[in-house]
């Protein structure tokens, strides 16, 4: 598709308005984590390579999210890539400004600390920036979500967004490791089962708006196998990746690391199952 540059004032003003909304979304979605102490000290010791990997993998994720919450029927990579870049910029600037206001960016900050703090916080903030439209904008119920409600992978992707968002808010905290150490094997297993049950109740039982028709008509075991179990697996993988990125699993034997992943997967799975409600 040819992308002409619109020079007229109205289109640019509308864009500026959208930008303001995106900033609001970035701040609202970013605030809980912008005010979490662990997030200020994390960039100081986490591996720069892992942070770079997180941001590099996050960008295609933002492009896909842009396509899902977007308005147009057609898929245009340029449009969605532009939206994702703008969202990242908004997330980056919003995080920087809020951290500055909170006194967490000192003038004598090194490059590593500055980049680490701001770019790490930009991840949830840019999700917020991108979602701001579906949150605050006037929503046309039918045109709101793209990708087709029946599209299975689309549904899974939305679950992944929900999981990532909630897991990102909890993963940096010490509490994940404290809880996993206190629980012990049996209780961790119980937590995993309870997570699956909660997830299934949210996916299948609670009829959230935007729920695929498929969930209503298909038998429970089919929904369980195709959505709950797969959604939980996605949550587990995302949690393991996040904890590894934050260096929380370093020098940990696999069973202990797995317990921490299961603990984090609890909020992640709830986020995944209720993503339709939030997004």
């Amino acid at each position: 598709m040819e992308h002409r540059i619109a020079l007229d004032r109205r289109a640019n003003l509308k864009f500026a308005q959208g930008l303001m909304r995106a900033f609001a979304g970035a701040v609202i979605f970013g605030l809980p984590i912008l005010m979490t102490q662990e997030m200020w000290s994390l960039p100081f010791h986490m591996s720069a390579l892992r942070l770079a990997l997180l941001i590099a993998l996050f960008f295609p994720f933002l492009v896909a999210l842009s396509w899902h919450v977007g308005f147009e029927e057609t898929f245009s990579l340029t449009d969605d890539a532009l939206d994702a870049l703008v969202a990242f910029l908004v997330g980056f600037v919003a995080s920087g400004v809020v951290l500055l206001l909170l006194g967490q960016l000192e003038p004598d900050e090194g490059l590593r600390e500055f980049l680490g703090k701001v770019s790490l916080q930009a991840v949830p903030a840019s999700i917020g920036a991108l979602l701001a439209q579906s949150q605050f904008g006037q929503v046309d119920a039918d045109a709101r979500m793209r990708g087709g409600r029946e599209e299975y992978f689309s549904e899974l992707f939305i679950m992944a967004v929900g999981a990532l968002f909630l897991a990102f808010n909890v993963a940096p905290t010490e509490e994940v490791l404290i809880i996993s150490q206190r629980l012990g094997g049996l209780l961790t297993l119980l937590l995993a089962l309870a997570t699956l049950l909660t997830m299934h109740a949210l996916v299948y039982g609670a009829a959230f708006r935007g729920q695929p028709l498929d969930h209503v008509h298909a038998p429970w075991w089919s929904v369980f196998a195709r959505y709950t179990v797969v959604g939980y697996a996605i949550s587990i993988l995302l949690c393991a990746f996040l904890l590894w990125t934050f260096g929380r699993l370093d020098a940990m034997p696999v069973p202990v690391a797995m317990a921490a992943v299961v603990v984090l997967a609890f909020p992640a799975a709830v986020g995944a199952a209720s993503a339709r409600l939030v997004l």
Partner: protein
Amino acid sequence: MGSPGTAAKPRKQDRANEGEGSVPLAEWVAAACGAVVMLVTLACLGWLAIHERDGLVDPAVHVVTIERRGERYHVKLRVENQGGAAAAGLRVQAQLRRGDAVVEEAEVEFDHVPAHAHRTAGMFFRNDPRQASLELSVRSYRQP
């Protein structure tokens, strides 16, 4: 409705007037800024990742100012970690000496001193550090 970008794009009903696929100039500019920020971030993180490999903690400490505050003397010092690895709980000890005798001692601990970064701290002495020799030494640190 869509993301920050799509919001600004003309809605379907407006499309007839404004033409398909036209993107406001402001969005191109913002997206270009976003691309620069993302690429610079990735490049810097990559650079840090290469330079911090097998990095060592290499702290140097020196006095910034000495001033009298009432009955006490305030020494502002600065520790610079020139190495490629971060240090936690970095302890700096100061001794005021006159000849062989230690007149006064003080110690300060820095929570975090990142790689290639500096931190400042203050110490108080009863004796004037300018009238004696002030020796600063880095004692210990933890891996973060």
